[in-house]
């Protein structure tokens, strides 16, 4: 290590904040260089002087009181409504993904007609496949509506 390089680490050396390799280099250099050693010694003395003469100031009590009164303690509280909307959004996306998966699964039955080049049958098969989930969904919907009707028209004895 040269004097030019060592001067970039004098103050770090005094604060013991060098890593192992840098510390080893600096220590070795200071053993050989009296000028750098003298400068480091002066820095250390100044640091010691200022540490001993550091102003001891007691902060006034109102600092804490004023700060705690000024801040919004609820600033980082997550609001309940926004979390519910977030959950609903997640549900909606999940249902959409399930629908697309169902659609994709039904489309796999079209592979054999395509492979055997029965292109003329493709439109018919495709139409049937697309109609199938919608037909099933409408059956389920009608069943639910019937149930709801039976509850609304129910009359106690």
């Amino acid at each position, binding site marked *: 290590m040269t004097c030019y390089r060592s001067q970039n680490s004098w103050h770090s050396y005094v604060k013991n904040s060098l890593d192992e390799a840098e510390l080893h280099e600096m220590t070795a250099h200071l053993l050989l260089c009296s000028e750098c050693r003298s400068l480091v010694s002066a820095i250390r003395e100044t640091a010691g002087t200022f540490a001993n003469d550091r102003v001891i100031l007691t902060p006034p009590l109102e600092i804490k009181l004023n*700060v705690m009164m000024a801040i919004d303690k609820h600033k980082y509280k997550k609001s309940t409504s926004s979390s519910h909307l977030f959950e609903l959004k997640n549900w909606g996306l999940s249902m959409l993904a399930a629908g697309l998966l169902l659609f994709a699964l039904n489309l796999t039955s079209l592979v054999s007609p395509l492979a055997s080049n029965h292109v003329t049958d493709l439109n018919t098969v495709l139409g049937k496949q697309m109609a199938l989930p919608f037909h099933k969904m409408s059956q389920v919907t009608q069943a639910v509506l019937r149930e709801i009707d039976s509850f609304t028209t129910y009359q106690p004895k």
Partner: protein
Amino acid sequence: MHDDEIIRSILQGNGERYDDIVERYQTGLYRTAYYYTQNIEDARDLTQEILIKAYNYLAGFNQVSSFSTWLYRIAVNHCIDWCRKKKPLYVEAAYLDNLSDQERSPEDQLLQQELTSEVQAAVACLPEIYSTVLILYYFEDFSPQQIAEIVDAPKRTVETRLFRARKMLRDKLHSGSSGGEGYDLLPKPKQLAQLR
């Protein structure tokens, strides 16, 4: 409890935990602000503003650096902004809690207080880039690497500024003690001689 744990708790909605952060850092921030302002009331106001600003920006603390360096970055920038906007109308000597030193005579204590005030005033008169590194290194005990993170400069730059700042401070203090109008004939404490 570690700073990161307190911050995490605050960001989960427990704002009252900021009380611990204030308790932990208000003394250092108050002292730093005093070194910039040389006035107790301005130091108090600045400390409050710094702590409030830090709370409002807490979500931006990414925990890559330590909380103390993040907080002091806010503090230093706020103090420098204050210095640029208004110069102190008067310099108020702080009531020093370390006055009652039984080992020193009253005369020595008074001289010590004078020297401390002189040093503080000289530091405050330096250009901001030098006074900042001096305050953080010698008075707040940060390492050059930490100071580099606070002032957002390379460590080598901080080392250079520290070297120059110390020299400027020494020259300023020595020129103040060696003559001119109002030259004080009382001998200065030996500490002044250590700034060689």
